[in-house]
């Protein structure tokens, strides 16, 4: 059972390789369509620069090389997992990314758990209690949170919970300059995580609530539920054993696809909450035309998407064993 699952995942990952490769090539050229280069940005930020200075920087960054030479050396490096050097930061791209990937992963994981957990719960409740006040309240709440811009939600939460109530810090991942260690430090991070994670999960939670409600309503009307009811099972058992498992599949599909879009959403959250993650790094490197760094982040996200999709497929097979059977048949 497990070995076939592993084989399946491996298969999926191998199929992902050409996709990642194509993304890398497309990114390299797409990104160069943006006008301006890193030397101009650095000179602009300096407020003054001499011709000599611009020439030095271009030479140092390799920006004076023809495009095809830049491309060949980039591909050579990426095949060896060398993502290059960020001249702006004076550091290896990989070290910059790995330093910050943790913060983003934590934020994404936390908001994923909140949004899927709360979304499934609210959606299921709204479906079971269909046409009641509770169901209507949930639906209206989800429409409002779906339509509210994330940065506004973030700022409102800061005003209410940080400034007025004083429950949470306004920004950052941990108290700066503190010497906390161990559990104390973990708690400090968790304390800082609450507002950004809740804000980021707001939009997705609304989405999953709607999706879960619709899917649950549909499932509850299917024949096998009628059969279960005819067998004399209690409502609780019908919902938890039969309906929920089936209804949750679309939510999982959606969640898998949205891991990558969450990376985009986290740009806003990270900038509002001063969260030192990857989204913010990508955002800043775009405006600084720090192309090596930007390409590195894109590369990593494309891997992330391919891997996540493979993981979601595995989760499918756990929730619904029929799917694995199909996968096995298809791949012999």
């Amino acid at each position, binding site marked *: 059972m497990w070995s076939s699952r592993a084989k399946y995942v491996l298969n999926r990952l191998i199929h992902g390789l050409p996709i990642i490769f194509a993304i890398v090539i497309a990114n390299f050229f797409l990104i160069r369509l*943006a*006008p*301006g*280069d890193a030397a*101009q*940005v*650095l*000179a*602009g*930020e*300096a*407020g*003054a*620069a*001499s*011709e000599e*200075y*611009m020439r*030095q920087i271009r030479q*140092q960054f390799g920006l004076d090389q023809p495009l095809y030479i830049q491309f060949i050396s980039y591909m050579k490096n990426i095949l060896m997992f060398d993502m290059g050097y960020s001249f*702006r*930061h*004076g*550091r290896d791209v990989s070290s*910059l990314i790995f*330093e*910050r990937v943790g913060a983003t992963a934590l934020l994404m994981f936390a908001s994923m758990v909140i949004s899927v957990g709360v979304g499934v719960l609210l959606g299921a409740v709204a479906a079971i209690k269909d046409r009641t006040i509770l169901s209507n309240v949930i639906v209206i709440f989800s429409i409002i949170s779906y339509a509210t811009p994330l*940065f506004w939600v973030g*700022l409102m939460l*800061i*005003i209410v919970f*940080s*400034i007025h109530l*004083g429950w949470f*810090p*306004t*920004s*950052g*991942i941990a108290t*700066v*300059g503190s010497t906390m260690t161990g559990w104390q430090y973990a708690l400090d991070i968790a304390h800082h995580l609450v507002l950004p994670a809740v804000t980021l999960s707001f939009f997705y939670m609304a989405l999953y609530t709607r999706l879960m409600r619709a899917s649950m309503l549909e499932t509850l009307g299917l024949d096998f539920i009628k059969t279960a009811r005819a067998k004399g099972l209690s409502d609780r058992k019908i919902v938890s054993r039969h309906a929920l498992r089936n209804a949750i599949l679309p939510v999982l599909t959606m969640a898998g696809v949205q891991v990558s879009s969450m990376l985009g959403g986290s740009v806003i959250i*990270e*900038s*509002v*909450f*001063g969260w*030192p*993650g990857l989204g*913010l*790094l990508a*955002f*800043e490197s775009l*405006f*600084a*035309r720090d192309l090596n760094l930007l390409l590195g982040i894109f590369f990593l996200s494309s891997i992330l998407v391919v891997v996540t999709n493979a993981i979601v497929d595995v989760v499918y097979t756990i929730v619904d064993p029929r799917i694995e059977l199909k996968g096995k048949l298809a791949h012999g």
Partner: protein
Amino acid sequence: MLLIKSWKNGVRALALASAVSLAAGAAMAAPQRGGTLVVTTTPEPAIITNALSSAPTTAELATKIFDGLLEYDFDLNPKPSLAESWEISPDGKTITFKLRQGVVWHDGKPFTSADVQFSLMKVVKEYHPRGKGNLGPVTSIDAPDAHTVVLNLAHPYAPLMKGLSSLETPIVPKHVYEGTDFRNNPAVNNPIGTGPFKFAKWEKGNFIELQRNEKYWREGKPYLDRLIFRFIADSSTRAAGVERGEIDVATFGTINPVEMRRLEELPNISIAKGGYEAIAPVMMLELNTKRAPFDDKRVRQAVAYALDRNFITKNIWYGFGKPAVGPISSFVKGSGAFTDQGILKFDVKDRLDIANRLLDEAGLKRGANGMRTKIVHDVAPFGEDWRRMGEYIKQALARVGIEVELRNRDYPTFVREVHNKYDFDMTSTWSIGMADPILGVQRQTWSKNINPEVPFANVSQYSNPEVDKLWEAAQTEMDQAKRSQHFHKLQELLVADSPLIWLMEMDLVAVQNDKVQDLITSPLGVRGGLYDTWVKQ
């Protein structure tokens, strides 16, 4: 309603009275040692060694880590720092500095004249974007002994003595940099200086931590144990951090002017004025003098008449500045370079009539829709306040028949199109005038600075032989009175010609928590060493 208002006024008067007495109390209180100061600034710098970059936030960090040969008082007169005394020869071509003894670098090595020689000639003059402006005529430096340096100049150069602070000419350790590729030296982001604070930690995207230099040569200083610079991308969040007391000092540009006015009303927060005299920042519009309609002086003047500088200062920048009269800021009044006498004044009663008349004379007649011509205004990509100023300019110029299209682009695109291709009609910007006009102001109107390779130079492409001659004369003139005359004449010519429209002298104020004491003690303000700053515990 009336009652409430007077009650409010009463409270305000009381608060003011207590604030005054508090301030008086603070002046008498002895500084306390210890504590941490949290500063927020934006954007996060790319590097933190300002010998190699003049980016504003790089300088904010590096001036705590490095010292200069000199410091300046509020009238911009030199004061000792790493140099204890100095002597200028009668012909102005040699300057001898006696260096302080017993100063050590953060890594424990002794500081000597070789470091000064190396920093000035090999690093700052070659690599700092303003290095050639500050040190250009210095041809060689002799080091007769470990604590003496002699600067040899090709010709007398008055601005030299104004550009030797830690902001402009920081002294870096020769033993760390010599023989390396400076920009790729790891010490660039793990700097070793002689300054009051030592570099401790940089968590990218989050904060930089500096620690007290226990062996600092100013005995007993600095007062703070730690100095932390936090980077937060969103300006509203920065304001919330100040409001909640997580942030002690917010530098200029981190918080919108309207928010600064709101925070100022809070009991524990105030605005720290001063500390930008040596930077003398001025905000302006740059006009493309090589392209119609701004190739015509009358049209440029019409724009200068049509804009209300008082309105801009009061309503767009919430009073953080004062209307500018010309290219040179009144902040440098002490040096005699500034004047408002004999200069064309645009803020006159019938300014709109004059503007309309000038445009008529230039042959720009009103069309069917009431407009004479159409231009594009490239708004400086420095934030929403700049966009708001663009909207005001659009309205104000429409009143005299100039239709304005606003164009907002991201930073690299803006720099390339406007500053590298000169493809623009009108653009907004601000510029630091520095302690001497030669160091800062000259850049925008000297014809030798028309160079599309170099952004933020003479982008108006203004070329006037008379102006060039005056700039060049002021560079070498050593007689203070004669130099001032050159500068006065320059102001007269430039304002009349209006290749740039000078709008406002900017107050680069900081927002601070009231527990912070002695934040602004030099004309560099928060860009100084902050060794006198302390926090009430």
